[in-house]
């Protein structure tokens, strides 16, 4: 059969496209929910209206974003059964439970309380309203945990046995599925990276307004919050990524060897900065390396042995029978680099921003600014950056605000591609997982329909986002500043015909 139209090729393309697309919205939802909740907490505690304005502004962008995350998420759950029915039969006993938990615990939280939060401004006392957004935030984090536990089981199956009679994987230890180190490190890495996404988003947009000297008090606060988020999340993403790498060196040596285009095992093994090679012949023709670093990343030891692609391939052939157990090497290699490169670029820019906009630390008094002023960008001790250079910083922040999102997409492409040809590592091959009863024409139809629909929606969502970003925060009204003290609203009887604070 023509390889391009093999059933699992099309189904994989569809899964890749719909999942990467869905995941553009997920990390931003996770982080913006928490950021919005944090800002609303500040409003409730201090009653300073700038925090309420910020809550409304970032909350609006959060809502535009979560709408897309929610609707594209349904596809994810359905397509296991639609395109991967043999996978579903084989793993359902294990894989289904986290999915059901995700819906029952996390999605109900998110969807119910986001409705209360959107429509509840004039119906709920402010502390209850605040609790709603925190519950949404908790829901987003729980959702991430359950789905990552499920994915981790595909990366490193545990707590199961294969039933000889039914030929399916059966759960024997649910606790180990939920708490294995793959799940915990993947969760930590994904969660911290999500905050890097949200932080860079906030910094970019706050910088845009500050460069235009608009909405200064709100955007100044937002900028600081964004920069601190970027730096903290960037640092934790790097640390958790290092941990995840070490786990993967043990559990999926092929993935990590592919990530480095390390064809043959070496001790000590170098970290590759750039490589260009011939996949068919199994060697690199151009290489730029840092000696010993890969050994250190894998085993905390600069001279340790790291097995190469060819070694692992041979070992897996002995274990699982003849075949090619190598993933797409260039995708793994470059995906790994783009993940780290785009992510760390944002971290670097955030670190620079935090230093440039420092408030008092090593900053002479004449360069300190009040809450109504755009902060000076101060690189060295006593002079602010030239306005043109300062402007470049804001432009750079805006231009790179999607970098962590790109990094995360490549991270997922790397880790999912790096597991191939397995869908469940060492247990089930991707080619054995597709739906036998679904025709190529059907998969092709859905692939085209989703790609077109998602493309159109990307334009719609993007334009709407830009419109609301440019419009800036809304003016607060009297009723915004004086939320009801009773559930259902204070003036229910006195003013029965008052318009709702929010309506579709």
């Amino acid at each position, binding site marked *: 059969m023509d390889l391009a139209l093999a059933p699992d090729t099309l189904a994989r393309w569809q899964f890749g496209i719909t999942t990467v697309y869905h995941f553009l919205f997920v990390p931003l939802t996770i982080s913006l929910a928490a950021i919005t909740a944090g800002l609303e907490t500040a409003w409730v505690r201090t009653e300073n209206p700038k925090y309420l304005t910020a809550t409304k502004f970032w909350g609006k962008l959060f809502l535009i974003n979560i709408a*897309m995350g929610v609707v*594209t998420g*349904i596809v994810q759950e359905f397509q296991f059964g639609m395109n991967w029915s043999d996978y579903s039969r084989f793993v359902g*006993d294990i894989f289904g439970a986290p999915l059901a938990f*995700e819906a029952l615990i996390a999605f*109900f939280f998110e969807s119910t309380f986001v*409705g209360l939060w959107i429509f509840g401004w004039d119906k709920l006392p402010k502390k209850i309203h605040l609790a709603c957004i925190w519950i949404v935030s908790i829901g987003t984090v729980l959702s991430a945990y359950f789905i990552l536990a499920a994915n981790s089981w595909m990366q490193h199956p545990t707590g199961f046995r294969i039933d000889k009679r039914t030929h399916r994987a059966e*759960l024997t230890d649910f606790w180990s599925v939920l708490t294995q180190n793959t799940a915990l490190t993947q969760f930590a890495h994904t969660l911290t990276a999500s905050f890097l996404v949200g932080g860079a988003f906030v910094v970019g947009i706050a910088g845009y307004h500050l460069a235009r000297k608009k909405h200064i008090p709100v955007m100044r606060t937002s900028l600081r919050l964004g920069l601190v988020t970027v730096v903290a999340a960037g640092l934790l993403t790097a640390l958790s990524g290092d941990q995840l790498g070490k786990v993967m060196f043990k559990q999926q040596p092929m993935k990590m060897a592919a990530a480095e285009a390390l064809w043959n095992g070496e001790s000590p093994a170098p970290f590759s900065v750039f490589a260009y090679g011939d996949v068919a012949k199994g060697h690199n023709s151009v290489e730029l390396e840092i000696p010993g670093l890969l050994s250190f990343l894998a085993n905390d030891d600069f001279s340790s042995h790291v097995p190469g692609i060819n070694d692992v391939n041979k070992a897996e052939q002995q274990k699982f029978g003849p075949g090619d157990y190598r993933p797409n090497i260039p995708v793994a290699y470059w995906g790994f680099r783009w993940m780290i490169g785009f992510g760390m670029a944002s971290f670097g820019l955030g670190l620079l921003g935090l230093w440039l906009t420092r408030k008092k630390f090593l900053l002479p008094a004449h360069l300190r600014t009040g809450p109504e002023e755009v902060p000076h960008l101060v690189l060295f001790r006593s002079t602010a950056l030239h306005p043109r250079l300062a402007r470049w910083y804001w432009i750079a922040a805006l231009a790179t605000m999607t970098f962590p999102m790109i990094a995360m997409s490549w991270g997922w492409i790397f880790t999912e591609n790096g597991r191939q040809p397995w869908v469940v590592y060492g247990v089930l091959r991707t080619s054995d997982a597709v*739906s036998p009863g679904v025709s190529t024409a059907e998969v092709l139809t859905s692939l085209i*329909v989703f790609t077109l629909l998602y493309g159109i929606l990307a334009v719609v969502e993007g334009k709407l986002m830009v419109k609301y970003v440019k419009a800036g925060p809304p003016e607060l009204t009297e009723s915004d500043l004086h939320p009801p003290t009773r559930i259902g609203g204070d003036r229910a009887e006195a003013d029965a015909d008052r318009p709702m604070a929010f309506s579709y």
Partner: protein
Amino acid sequence: MQLHDIWFILIAVLWAGYFFLEGFDFGIGVLTKLLARDRAERRVLINTIGPVWDGNEVWLITAAGATFAAFPDWYATLFSGFYLPLLLILVCLIVRGVAFEYRAKRPEERWQRNWEHAIFWSSLLPAVVWGIFFANIAHGLRIDAHGDYVGGLGDLLNQYALLGGVVTLLLFTFHGAVFAALKTVGDIRVRARRLAIGLGAATAVAAGGFLAWTQVDSGDAESLFAVVGTVVALVLAVVAAGRGREGWSFALSGLAVVGVVTTLFLTLFPDVLPSTLDPRWSLTVSNAASTPYTLTIMTWCAGCATPLVLLYQGWTYWVFRKRIGTQHIAGAGGAGTAVPAARAH
């Protein structure tokens, strides 16, 4: 009763809950063209479900996820077998969700009108397809020895299934009209009630025919009870609507939704997906189920989480219990004019 029997009941409960809740959501979507006279009234209708539609839809995600976890083979055959119908439902649910959230976010006439068309069609189509879907499950599918659906799209569009689609469309629209009468105030409430009576009568006739067919095809004494109960609930719902007892009418139309799901699941048991090619290839509660270990974990989770979900979802309906009319829609002024987005929210 074994664990997989309990999970069969729980899956039925989840689908019944989904159709009870999203049933009136779909109905409201259809009524934006059937009942609303202008944009302000369309907005009133949309806002009756504004805070709750998303939470209602999670019942579907839970039903699908629970089927995956409790009956992997059922989930696998069902979702791959109904490939194109489910694709249509997915497209509708995507468009519909975005339409609700984005419609009011720009003031332009064309933007709002397009999303309103989208809301109508993306509510109407799933209402039909879900009926076709469940009628086919109850009737059985061409399933081979491996458990795969080997029929085509044409086989799914048989007369019985098409009647099922008509029934769910009518039933959900009726349920939505009663909900609209319950949640609105003013002229639209009066018209919603009047429309509900006509829709309810039509639903009673169509559902009566469909359920009788189901009963003759594969019914037993218990399902006969459900059939009669459903038809009685529909008739009483119409009577209650006629007398202006909207709360009672809504409870009864909801009961009718639950009754239809109950009838279909009763005729199904102990199969979950009968094979029309060879009864030995039918998927049953025992051969499609997960292990007792997994089902036990699931039971604990569902037992703890479901009451909590019902509690806070119920609370949401209580918070937004107030009826709404055109006067509550900011900037609408009772006329079908476009609304400046920046102020509307």
